[in-house]
């Protein structure tokens, strides 16, 4: 066991190395690139066995990942933002092939306009694809989640996305405890063993046609629903996977992180690295007499519905903080949680806050204000309309930029 200062990107690369990933199809994109640069350096020097192939696009990269996974090697790949969107045809195609691999997504806002800063709109665009999704809140969790994701993916035979926030995790160093290679190998036996056979698919003399077209709706429905059932089954599998991990490494990763939830009445609900700051705010709210808590789904797919219902029964209000935006609807997490709680006895009031778009810093003071708004709403018995985190000062900044862009003059013509 070694404790090192690592960025989230380096932690992801270490996860792949400790998982003995054989094959890395790659394509650079900020802020993910450090992952493939790190792996390329290790493979070049011989520190890590395996092969990295630089592809000409993310679409090709993911296609190569699907093919190599089908041919029975352990595959790792990574992308961000526009890269994930460009690969989206294959993101939707991969799960139905029922071959596991791990894709790390370093979250970054999507165009238009282009940004390189973080938000979760990219990864949530892959929400309905069939990929499992693990969302991380620290660099330690990134390294661990890659190992966990392989074991989970190989158990239910679906590919998995491990998501980390751009910049706040990807470029931030913090202490990470790395398991030694032997321990990691004990947790994650070779792929062939996980499949219970040493015979590899796609060998001479063993005919296999994978990914066949299915034109009749009956069989189509069957195959599509099988992927869904496998994703749902991953919830149960996660229990075993995370229990084993906790026993072996002493770090426990429940499907939903619950912080100071025992008697909490006002609950922050969010994903990713923002959890750190929110925990600090929960502590300070508690010190000031407000019974606050925090729930953070680590698993976004499968969605840990039963656990969420259980945790939230009888609470007064939930402050859902979305770092994404579904145009014409609102925060994605808010909609997800509302659908899980509708009609449930003792369901809390849900408040929707949308912030963190394009890396917009969510200030601690804003989290405090959310709790204040939630208390007022609980007293009134009615949730206010969704709130965009955007201040008068920020609008003044935009107005200045619009003046420079001469947009106002143009409007007058």
């Amino acid at each position: 066991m070694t404790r090192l200062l690592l960025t989230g990107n380096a932690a992801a690369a270490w996860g792949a190395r400790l998982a003995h990933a054989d094959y890395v199809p790659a394509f650079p994109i900020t802020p993910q690139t450090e992952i493939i640069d790190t792996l390329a350096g290790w493979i070049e020097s011989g520190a890590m066995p395996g092969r990295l192939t630089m592809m000409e696009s993310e679409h090709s990269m993911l296609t190569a990942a699907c093919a190599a996974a089908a041919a029975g090697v352990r595959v790792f790949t990574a992308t961000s933002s526009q890269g994930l969107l460009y690969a989206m045809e294959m993101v939707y195609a991969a799960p139905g092939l029922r071959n596991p691999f791990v894709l790390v997504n370093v979250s970054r806002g999507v165009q238009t306009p282009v940004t390189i800063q973080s938000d979760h709109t990219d990864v949530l665009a892959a929400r309905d694809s069939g990929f499992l999704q693990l969302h991380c809140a620290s660099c330690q969790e990134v390294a661990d989640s890659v190992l966990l994701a392989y074991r989970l993916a190989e158990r239910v035979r679906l590919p998995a996305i491990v998501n980390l926030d751009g910049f706040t995790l990807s470029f931030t160093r913090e202490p990470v405890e790395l398991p030694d290679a032997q321990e990691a190998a004990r947790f994650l036996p070779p792929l062939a063993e996980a499949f219970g056979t040493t015979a590899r698919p796609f060998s001479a003399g063993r005919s296999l046609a994978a990914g066949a077209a299915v034109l009749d709706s009956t069989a189509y429905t069957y195959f599509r629903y099988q992927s869904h059932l496998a994703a749902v089954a991953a919830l149960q599998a996660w229990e075993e996977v995370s229990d084993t991990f906790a026993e072996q490494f002493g770090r426990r990763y429940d499907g939903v992180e619950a912080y100071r939830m025992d008697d909490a009445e006002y609950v922050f609900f969010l994903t990713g690295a923002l959890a750190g700051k929110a925990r600090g705010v929960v502590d300070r709210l508690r010190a000031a007499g407000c019974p606050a808590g925090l729930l953070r789904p680590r698993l976004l797919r499968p969605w840990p519905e039963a656990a969420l219902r259980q945790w939230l029964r009888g609470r007064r209000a939930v402050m859902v903080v979305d770092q994404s935006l579904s145009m014409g609807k609102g925060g994605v997490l808010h909609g997800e949680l509302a659908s899980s709680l509708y009609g449930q006895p003792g369901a809390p009031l849900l408040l929707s806050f949308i912030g963190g778009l394009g890396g917009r810093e969510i200030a601690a003071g804003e989290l405090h204000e959310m709790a204040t708004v939630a208390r007022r709403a609980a007293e009134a018995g009615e949730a206010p309309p969704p709130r965009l985190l955007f201040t008068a000062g920020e609008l003044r900044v935009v107005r200045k930029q619009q003046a420079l862009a001469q947009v106002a003059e143009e409007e007058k013509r």
Partner: protein
Amino acid sequence: MYRIRFHGRGGQGMKTASRILGSALFLAGYEVQDAPHYGAERRGAPMHAVVRAARGPIQERGFVDRPDLVVVADEGLLAEAGAAILQGLDHHSLLLTVGREPAALWQDRLRLAGPVLALADAVIAAGERHFLGAFCAGAAARLLGVVALACLLQAVDDEVASFGEAAVARSRELAEAGWRGLEEHAGSVGEGSAAGASGQAPPDWIELQAEAGDLAAPSIHGGLSSIEVRTGLWRTQRPVIDYAHCRRCWWVCSEFCPDSAISVDADGTPTIDYAHCKGCLVCLAQCPAHAIRAVPERGASS
């Protein structure tokens, strides 16, 4: 918790500074977080890097809004872009400037509530500004007073190793020089407290209204607005035309300037637009009459 910001330009080693200080604090037994903050990664563009260190786990992330120590590796930045650098400085925060000017000048000019120290950078040659990071890290470590010199030097070895032995040797010298330069101020930076709930003013959130499509799209009308962007601030070397030797060929320096920052008048006399010249010195290298020389930027203005 200690919260530190290093401000400099891309290429001056501020990320390295944060990593050296982060590693040194980690070796000294602290929990640590360090991170660079930049938009596009361009040499010469202003950027900063942060370090947090505490005895327990660190929950905070992102921008350091209440720094205990701000190190400015390049005085020029302070003169031009002071606001961003001074953000969140209060009576307990220490500002360390690295350069030529005395602390009293900055204390007076910036009207800061907290202490200001200045560290002369005479030991760093014009051609080795990329080593500023090690120098700043050494200075910062001494100001915190909780890092032994051996930890600092070990951290330099760890963080600079990939740049080769010569870089490690020079970085060690400069880290130690920074460290020694602040001997009498050892330990003068203390840990800041966690921001209290009471100290948080409620945000002035507004309702954003739907606006006309042209206003609501990232479109720029009329063009040429980038003249507002002072890329001249990136410059560390200033090209100066010696008009006595300029042959008025008119085209060489102007044509090769990547930034269209050299204009010529009807006589073929070139003029450099210092607000936008990035100091690449392609003009100096190409001038057939050798009529352009380079002046270190700080000396150029005086």
